[in-house]
């Protein structure tokens, strides 16, 4: 079975099959985003307590979910890198870090913009906000480390180790609102319970969340394929590909 998987993971093969995945991810992302935005801004009710600020939830929560999801994708790539040393996975680590960092920052800032009208403060040092900030620093660390090595493959392996050491932060972020009774509200959507939010708010939230995830993969594949061309530039398939393009 592994020879089968290795074939798909080879740079040349990956470059060709990921092209259609990238295209479809982009299309799905664009569609879901349009539907999601329609529901978020136009077709959902204002909250009884929070008023119109509840609409911020439709971008803040998907961004926060994506910040953690991105880290898990990066961690998966890290495991593949360390065990099987697959080049494509090595490239994925740094690219996930860049995209993940941007969404972590987005989650933090939209959180601040939601916090000010809701709680009266832009920032509090509660468990979830602090651990999300730590997540941003972890992403920066991965980006810095993978770029610091002359040999990019060694850099990717170092970044993989760092990623896996830092993975403890993800459950801390996720469960922080259950473990500590502080400011940030409790979990609304859980895998096992029926969600405590009304469908009119749940649907825009889930659509936007899926839109963000599709977008993540679209950008990830685009960046990874580009990086792949650079690293494999001396192989015959890349040379042939570029000659064709010109």
């Amino acid at each position: 079975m592994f020879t089968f998987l290795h074939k798909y993971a080879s740079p040349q093969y990956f470059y060709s099959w990921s092209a259609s995945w990238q295209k479809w991810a982009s299309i799905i992302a664009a569609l879901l985003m349009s539907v999601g935005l329609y529901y978020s801004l136009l077709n959902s009710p204002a909250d009884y307590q929070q008023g119109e600020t509840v609409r911020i939830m439709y971008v803040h929560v998907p961004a926060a979910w994506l910040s953690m999801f991105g880290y898990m994708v990066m961690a998966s790539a890290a495991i593949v890198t360390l065990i099987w040393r697959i080049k494509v996975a090595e490239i994925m680590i740094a690219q996930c870090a860049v995209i993940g960092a941007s969404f972590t920052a987005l989650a933090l800032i939209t959180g601040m913009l939601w916090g000010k009208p809701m709680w009266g403060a832009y920032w509090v040092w509660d468990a979830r906000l602090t651990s999300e900030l730590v997540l941003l620093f972890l992403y920066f660390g991965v980006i810095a480390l993978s770029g610091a090595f002359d040999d990019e493959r060694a850099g990717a392996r170092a970044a993989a180790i760092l990623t896996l050491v830092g993975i403890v932060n993800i459950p801390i972020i996720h469960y922080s609102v259950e473990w500590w009774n502080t400011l940030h509200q409790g979990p609304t959507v859980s895998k096992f319970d029926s969600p405590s939010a009304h469908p009119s708010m749940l649907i825009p939230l889930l659509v936007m969340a899926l839109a963000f995830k599709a977008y993540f993969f679209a950008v990830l594949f685009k960046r990874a394929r580009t990086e792949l061309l650079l690293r494999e530039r001396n192989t015959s398939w890349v040379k042939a590909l570029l000659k064709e393009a010109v």
Partner: protein
Amino acid sequence: MSEFFHMGGYAFYVWGSYGLTAGVLLANLVFATMRRKQILQQIQELSEED
């Protein structure tokens, strides 16, 4: 219509958030595209050196 822009007085916060989101989404796309162009050019230059 103006109610839509006003967002119950929270215009700054709501539109700020959505604007930033749009910004991040656009920025990721733009940077990815720029990087692609940059790398294609870089490969071109490197292969001309050989």
